[in-house]
């Protein structure tokens, strides 16, 4: 089996919170996860499960308390580990005083892409995300959807081998979500590896090869979507997800309460 592109080993992240009276909050608890080349892996979990914390560690924003993570065999603590990745944050904010073209040229410079190739690359990604007509407009004039697409463009500027997307369809309309889904599928066909978190389980089910489900910092389930559905005897991924995190329908509770009161 090929070496994993992304390897998380016994990752533990703890916060010391003033709100909790300086007690330690464990955000990620002994996480082990691997992502192999060419896979599209969905990283799921309810809010506060530790998904963004894990991604922050992968991207070097946050040092782990224990354990480590590796990108292409290089520890994430080293900046060179990020040479071949692209990252789309959940909240897409970019320099409002730049145009899309200038922003991509800036990021391309950081990747040391030669000028001529960079110009071609910028043209290509802007066409891909359908921002070519507005490439010279300042980003502050863009709509939410356009800013999201700029985010996708900057994540692709260096032709990355691994894409880390944090809720890529967040805030998008159905057409926008479809376009993003289409791009992920296109990247998958090109042999790229995609690791993304999302709350849109329908989309995850459509595009992902594997999913990993996190809750309270712990990895609760991992595997192929079809295998998980079969294993947990559920109809779809959403039910698997709800079952794993132990969520019960509110109607059951109300019915139960009404029955108890009547009794």
């Amino acid at each position, binding site marked *: 089996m090929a070496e994993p592109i992304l390897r998380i080993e016994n990752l533990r992240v703890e916060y010391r919170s003033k709100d909790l009276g300086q007690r330690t909050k464990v955000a990620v608890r002994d996480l082990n996860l691997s992502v192999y080349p060419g896979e599209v892996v969905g990283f799921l979990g309810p809010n506060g499960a530790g998904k963004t914390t894990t991604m922050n560690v992968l991207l070097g*924003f946050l040092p782990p308390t224990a354990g480590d993570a590796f990108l292409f065999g290089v520890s994430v603590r080293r900046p060179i580990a990020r040479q071949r990745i692209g990252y789309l944050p959940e909240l897409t904010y*970019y320099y409002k005083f730049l145009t899309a073209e200038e922003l991509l040229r*800036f990021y391309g410079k950081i990747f040391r892409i030669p000028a001529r190739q960079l110009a071609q690359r910028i043209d290509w990604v802007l066409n891909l995300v359908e921002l070519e007509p507005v490439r010279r407009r300042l980003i502050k004039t863009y709509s939410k959807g356009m800013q999201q697409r700029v*985010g996708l463009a900057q994540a692709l500027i260096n032709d990355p081998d691994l894409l880390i997307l944090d809720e890529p369809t967040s805030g998008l309309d159905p057409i926008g979500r479809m376009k993003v889904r289409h791009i992920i599928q296109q990247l998958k066909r090109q042999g790229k590896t995609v690791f993304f978190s999302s709350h849109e389980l329908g989309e995850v089910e459509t595009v992902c090869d594997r999913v990993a489900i996190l809750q309270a910092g712990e990895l609760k389930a991992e595997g192929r979507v079809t295998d998980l559905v079969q294993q947990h005897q559920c109809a779809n991924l959403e039910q698997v997800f709800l079952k794993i995190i132990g969520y019960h329908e509110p109607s059951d509770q109300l019915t139960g309460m009404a029955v108890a009161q009547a009794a």
Partner: protein
Amino acid sequence: MNPAISSLVWPWRRRPEQPAGLHLLTALNNIHAVGGVVIRELYRRKDFYVLFVLTALITLVMGSVNFFNEDRIVRYLKELCLFLIWVSGLVIAVTTAARQIPAEREHRTLFPLLAKPVTRAQVLLGKFWGCWLATGLALVVFYVFFGVVSGLRERQLPLDSYWQALTLHWFMLGVVCALALLGSLVFAAPSSTNTITLVVVTGILLLGRHLNKVALSLPEPWQTVVYGLYFVIPHLELFDVRDLVVHNWGAIPWGIWLAALGYATVYAALLLGAACWLFRRKTLN
């Protein structure tokens, strides 16, 4: 992927594994790239243009005042113009530097940047480089204006003096930029950083030269404390050669000029080192 592109060699993807430390050229490239963004921001904001227009307007209005029908009075105009340039330079340097990191954190533009193969130190140094370059560009415009105004009145242009004044001013603002960047990592709000940096810088400019005299008049242990402070603070007033320019004292020896630039470089490096150390330990959220 576009077939035409896929057939091209993408050297940054096929580059062999980098050594343990980042290559110096890569670091300089990143610093320069980040600095370029800062410069672009400065000339797309209105601050510089407003300050320049104000300076030019006030200078030209004051230059049109008639004093006893003497049309060759120039020193008051030079002093006024240089004073406005100094105020404008300080405002540009402090406000530009103080808002860099807080704005990146507040607008969350820091995350996509740090997700690239760039270290926090390179981001900080890039911000400094951009602020300092941007300030230098602004100063060039201001000093050219000053040169034109004084040259037309005085009918002479001591280029060596003006060049020294410009470069000393620029290097002084480098120390100020570094100080403001450090302050922006210590204080939460840019307004706090602006105020404190301006107060500190103004205090040094006004009192720095005289601290040793003040120290000598104090009893111990305050004399030692103040004298120690006198040696520790960056003496920004060294770079204020306005009196020499206004009163036509001529250029200072070039060796002394170079030593002063070196002095500023050392202090800027120390402040930036402290800022890098702080930034590495800061949580980004």
